[in-house]
């Protein structure tokens, strides 16, 4: 994807062109807005909005940096960073209402936090400790947060897309002023429930927004091996509703496009697919080694589209939010993250009883028997 293309609302040809700037020097591409345009796009409190955007993206970045560090030290078992995707998470979260539902993919935890999931509670989840609401049953980065309507996710790809559609059906049936959001990556567009979800949503014109965060890689598989379609956005055509492609590294663009899309969906006009083009600026996860499959230098080039860097470069140009203030904010967020981590790291693992809870509401045989003989089986000396 050449640099200028992500913001084009229509599909680009599948030309096999490099999807990152081909030519060094590798400089950050600032967001292209002046004050007037920001004021037009973001409304009167535009400085406030910018602050909110920056704070949100920075929180994600600080968290990723800390957690990847902890993972390398062996203090958490796994981490799925969202570095490079912050603009899309923040832009989306900012146009949601509290009644909206979120069905996330792997890299949307920032949305849960911005919707009100307590940072320390999230840290408990990352450590899978006794205060984790899911009792340490899931790998890190798979939080559940009913209070902010952030659905529990699996590691199976694309299955959540049709869940978002089922919830959207409920929203429509109960006439609730809310939108159901399905987030998924480029790889998920090949999975079964992308098809079932898009198709069902189209048939009933449901209030659901499909957000494809196209970060160029499904682990090691690039876009051109994922689909022969000219873009992921064009897939919406086959389901009878609009698809749009946006620059997912531009938080202003994400916010304004998704706000308009949400308003349209809320009006009863039916679903919409947004392909948010962005770049995965880390390995797929803490277990992945991109040097096995990425062209040499790809990631360095992609960093020209670091959403945080682009935003900061714009701030520099506008002179609205000086570096000293930005630094102070970073330090403040980092302190909050460190405190949350410290609190979570000292908590004990989940109590052993929790092994036997939450499979069915009331455990059935043989689980009851397994639970009752647990102490005898686990205790005592052997041999």
């Amino acid at each position, binding site marked *: 994807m050449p640099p200028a293309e992500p913001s084009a609302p229509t599909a680009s040809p599948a030309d096999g062109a490099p999807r990152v700037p081909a030519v060094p020097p590798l400089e950050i591409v600032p967001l292209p807005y002046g004050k007037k345009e920001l004021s037009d796009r973001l409304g009167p409190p535009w400085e406030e909005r910018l602050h909110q955007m920056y704070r949100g993206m920075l929180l994600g970045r600080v968290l990723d940096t800390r957690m990847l560090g902890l993972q390398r030290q062996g203090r958490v078992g796994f981490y799925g960073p969202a570095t490079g995707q912050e603009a899309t998470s923040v832009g989306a979260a900012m146009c949601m209402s509290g009644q909206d539902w979120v069905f996330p993919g792997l890299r949307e935890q920032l949305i849960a936090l911005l919707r009100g999931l307590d940072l320390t509670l999230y840290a408990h989840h990352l450590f899978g400790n006794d205060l984790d609401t899911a009792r340490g049953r899931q790998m890190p980065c798979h939080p559940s947060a009913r209070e902010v309507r952030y659905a529990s996710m699996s590691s199976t790809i694309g299955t959540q897309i049709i869940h978002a559609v*089922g919830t959207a059906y409920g929203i429509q049936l109960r006439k609730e002023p809310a939108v159901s959001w399905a987030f998924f990556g480029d790889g998920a567009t090949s999975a079964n429930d992308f098809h*079932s979800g898009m198709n069902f949503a189209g048939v009933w014109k449901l209030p659901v927004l499909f957000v494809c965060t196209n970060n160029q890689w499904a682990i090691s598989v690039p876009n051109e091996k994922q689909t022969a379609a000219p873009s992921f956005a064009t897939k919406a055509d086959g389901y009878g509703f609009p698809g749009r492609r946006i620059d997912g590294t531009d938080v202003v663009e994400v916010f304004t496009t998704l706000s308009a899309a949400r308003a349209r969906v809320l009006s009863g006009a039916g679903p919409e697919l947004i392909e948010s083009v962005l770049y995965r600026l880390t390995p797929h996860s803490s277990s992945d080694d991109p040097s096995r499959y990425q062209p040499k230098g790809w990631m360095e080039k992609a960093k020209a589209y670091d959403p945080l860097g682009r935003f900061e470069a714009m701030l520099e140009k506008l002179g609205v939010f000086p570096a000293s203030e930005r630094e102070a904010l970073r330090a403040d967020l980092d302190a909050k993250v460190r405190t949350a981590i410290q609190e979570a790291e000292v908590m004990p693992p989940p109590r052993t009883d929790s092994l036997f809870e939450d499979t069915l509401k009331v455990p059935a045989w043989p689980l009851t028997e397994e639970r009752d003989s647990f102490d005898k089986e686990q205790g005592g000396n052997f041999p």
Partner: protein
Amino acid sequence: MTEATLIQAVNKALHHAMKVDPDVLCLGEDIGVNGGVFRATEGLQKEFGESRVLDTPLNESGIVGMAVGMALYGLKPVAEIQFLDFIYPAFDQIVSELTKFRYRSGGQFPAHVVIRTPYGGGIRGGLYHSQSTEQLFASTPGIKVVVPSTPADAKGLLLTAIFDEDPVLFMEPKRIYRTATGEVPEGDHRVPFGKARIVREGSDVSVFAYGSMVPTAFQARQVLEKTGIHAELVDLRTLVPLDVDAVVRSVEKTGRAVIVHEAPKFCGFGAELAAILAEKALYSLKAPIVRVTGYDTPFPYTLENLYLPSVDRIGRAIQRTVAAG
């Protein structure tokens, strides 16, 4: 009480649930205008409207996945999979999603979905309209597996399923949809899960069956009664949760066990029952446990009557078991 067939009883349960609870809705292929290919949902769309009785596009994963999303939202969806043979596109949704939501969210997101599906052979349906694969689901923690064999149980167990709080696979024995008839209580008739039904008491041998094998085993039992063999026929009703006490108690009394199901023998549900008896009732056994099952092949078309456990096969197995010790 009114006389009804098993499929009419299913319809009555759905009708009652939808009438008393606006959160209950049905979705599936051909269930609305057409009333279902077996007519289980006949008349429901006319009475409750298209928004609560949904003719879905043809996609089983979509049907179950959509039902999961509805349940997370707070509705009580009853999804129909037209034949159990077609459930596999939804296997991912059942195994990876439906059965895991409560567990993986620490109880924050229970996903209570009922999946109704006709199963089993004997209707000249060939490989893809006849299979019994209950063991695939019974061996997956997080879902209840229910198999009625009478109209009263069909209604009572289905209403229990709809107002339960866990996922339920409700397997309907389509071979006896219209041949099983009986009195069905009116109104909110519920049959609890995990309570087996002793169809007939007996002292010589315990016969365990469920679904469409119950009437077949019953005929075998009645024939043998005249020869002096008193078999106790136990209808399991729910495979998960299983009434393990009833299974063990019966064999402690009779000392012999014959297990009957349509599914193939290897790793079938009968293997679990046999293992339970080996663990809990070994010293009561006077003879080896015998399983009478479908053969370990795909399901045949022309020769299905030889494939399925018959009155004769079950009867001979009972005779041999009683003679063995």
